[in-house]
């Protein structure tokens, strides 16, 4: 199961962020200067990470853009996909 805490730990470890989990709000935008500040390379790594660790595949870039907005949106998408499967 993907929890918000676990996702934040993965983000910090895999994207090499110099942050603590408590620095990342559940609904803080992940991308852009007003948020955590991730970029397109991070997005690519997130896609690979979610597929590798949780078997969650995104159909296209548009879906990725919707899913990867925040910790909340990622957890909801991954857990939601498991509930449907």
């Amino acid at each position, binding site marked *: 199961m993907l929890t918000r805490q676990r996702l934040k730990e993965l983000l910090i470890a895999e994207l090499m962020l110099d942050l603590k989990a408590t620095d990342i709000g559940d609904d803080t935008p992940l991308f852009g200067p007003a948020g955590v500040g991730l970029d397109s390379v991070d997005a690519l790594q997130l896609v*690979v990470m979610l597929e590798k660790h949780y078997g969650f595949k995104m159909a296209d870039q548009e879906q990725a853009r919707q899913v990867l907005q925040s910790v909340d949106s990622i957890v909801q998408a991954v857990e939601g996909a498991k509930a449907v499967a």
Partner: protein
Amino acid sequence: MPRNILITGANGTLGLAIAEFFLSYEPDAIVHLGVRERRERAASLVERSEGRAKLVTLEITDPDAWKAAIEQIGSLDVLVNNAGFHDDVLLANMKADQWSRVLEGNLGSVFHGCQAALAVMMRQRGGRIVNIASLSAIHPPAGQTNYAAAKAGVVGLTKSLAKEAARMGITVNAVLPGYIEGGLPPEWSEEHLKALKMQLPMRRFARPAEVAAAVFFLASPEASYITGTALPIDGGMI
């Protein structure tokens, strides 16, 4: 864990030298020799390698062939994009297909190879890509507008991809060899070769192992903070 090394153009002088360097200096590595129809020299190396070298049929401009080759290997730790070819002619006389074939064969192939390798290396969170460009990328003679453009493109691709892949533990570098013994056009006369050598600071061409050594280093775990470089191997020529 033994590393899987894939070298394209592995039937040629430089490809074989790179393969032999890995076999000599990385005792655990499995070296996969990417070849097409011409494969006699690579097959001979496989026979001598006691199971540590294997042939992989690979059409370098076909993305499906790349995917199949890497699936056949299983995992990929090092990709050496070495395959390439010349078709030298003055631009004024160059036919359109001489331009496009050289671009696709020397640059398009590197795009396809890097993309296929990246898909595996991203999941592994590590890898090494070494692209064999050419001194012609930065110091070309006349008659090589197609080849020089392609190899300059390889350098640009290398530098940009290095930035994309850096955070994933994947380094991407290029080497730019000058003239290499055994790798020069067979139609060049002895007189032409002698005159060429006299112009070089070392008055000799590179030995293939001297280029292979640089590739081996850039592909090594020890080169983990070197990425996006374009390393001339030219004996001081430029």
